[in-house]
């Protein structure tokens, strides 16, 4: 899923400083699962913002609404009747949400309350890690199901680099060197030979480097 972190209170307060009445919109998709922008977090943020603004002597009115998904035009319609009753709309969905909202309601102004980070999952309660960079051409089968594109700091197809030490990446002591893990796994399974293959330079056209992407499923297009 898409992992996001909530922006700092200061940054959010600064974004909405000129508004007196806003709608705070959550999303029941990924951001609910990673505990950043679901119904519960919408409620919490609304309370914190109201308290902070009251302290500043500049109270704000905040209504709350959490959509099924902000990345789906069908659910985006759920605020059609109310969107224009506010000075602005603050979205707690990933970066896709406020954009779908902006496109559906061009006359309203939308602000992001979260920073969208990566595709990943929870490795333990409260800790999420990156697993995929959406490169558009999945190659993890070459690496026993581990992705060096997303998980190696240098996206090496042939690793590890000289900075790998004690299983850790050169960028920080607490970052796993995925290449060390890949090599160990291959060794354990007696398939180290696999890594001798020199692969062609990666085709980055299918990744973000090829420009904005689109996926068309002919059988579904009406």
């Amino acid at each position, binding site marked *: 899923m898409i992992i996001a972190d909530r922006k700092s209170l200061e940054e959010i307060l600064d974004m909405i400083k000129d508004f007196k009445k806003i709608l705070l919109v959550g999303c029941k998709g990924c951001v609910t699962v990673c505990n950043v922008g679901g119904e519960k977090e919408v409620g919490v943020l609304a309370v914190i913002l109201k308290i902070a603004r009251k302290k500043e002597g500049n109270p704000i009115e905040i209504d709350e609404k959490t959509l099924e998904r902000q990345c789906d035009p069908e659910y985006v319609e759920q605020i059609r009747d109310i969107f224009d009753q506010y000075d602005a709309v603050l979205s707690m969905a990933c970066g896709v949400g406020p954009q779908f909202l902006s496109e559906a309601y061009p006359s309203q102004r939308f602000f992001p309350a979260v920073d969208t980070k990566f595709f990943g999952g929870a490795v333990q309660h409260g800790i999420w890690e990156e697993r995929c960079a959406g490169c558009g051409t999945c190659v993890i089968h070459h690496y026993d199901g581990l992705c060096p594109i997303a998980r190696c700091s240098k996206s090496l197809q042939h690793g590890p680099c000289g900075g790998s030490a004690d299983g850790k990446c050169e960028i920080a002591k607490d970052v796993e060197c995925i290449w060390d893990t890949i090599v160990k796994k291959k060794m354990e399974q007696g398939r180290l030979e696999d890594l001798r293959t020199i692969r062609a*330079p*990666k*085709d*980055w*056209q299918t*990744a973000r*480097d*090829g*420009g904005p992407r689109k996926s068309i499923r002919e059988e579904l297009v009406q």
Partner: protein
Amino acid sequence: MHLKNKFDVGKFTILAEMQPPKGVNVSAMVNSATRVQKAVDAFLVPEMGNAVMRMSSLGGAMILQRKGLETIMQVNCRDRNRIALQADLLAAYGCGILNIMGVSGEDPGLGDHHQTKAVDDIDLMTLFKAVSTLQTGKDLAGNELSGAPAFLVGANVNTRVTGDELEKELSRMAEKAEAGVDFFIAPPVFDIGAIAPFMEKVDLKKTRIIPTVMLLKSVGMARYLDRHLNVTISKDLIQRLMRAPDKATESLAIATEIISAVKAAGFAGILISAMGWEEKLQKLLDRV
């Protein structure tokens, strides 16, 4: 006298584009450049235009500088991150390259290495900011430099636009000038009337604009430019080239006329793009 001084005293400057080789054989580039060096004020060395891999602009410019020729090194945002860009700018200045031209760089999809990643770490305006920061003796991270460069900085401007697009282009040009751009290279011109709307809006005495004069190597090329690359070439001009018994002589005659018109209009100079006809440059320059 360096290019900057020539601009300062108002000399009509002649620039020539000198493409580095795709490979290591530099003799053709060096020979074409040295042959016309007396008539050319500076050689513009492109940085892998259209994302086609070849010898870098820094390499090409250094080779020409070593022969005593003044160069303008093109720098793009596509192929290098901010570390490499700053490093190469320092290298360039250290090797005597006093003039640079910043460009964004075309998408790799247009070139010959489609699968690569474009870097685009910093954009063009940030690149100009990086240049001016280096000139104050600091790098982009705020660290002190041991000796600061002092470049003459160029950028592109599109003189062919009209209406709303012209307004946008003028605002972008002003933005670049504020960011430290000293001169502007404009696209190929074949009919000075086509850029009249631009000329009306710009004080050519205050802004150094250098249109490109391209040698038309064939009727086919003229038609292609006209149809596909948004370069207006009139039917009359194409017919003139068609009727000419010797296309090369006619093409040079056409270029000579354009150069005279550009000069008379008060532009700061011209950039000659010989399109592989570098050996004909001398003939053209003899006439100018």
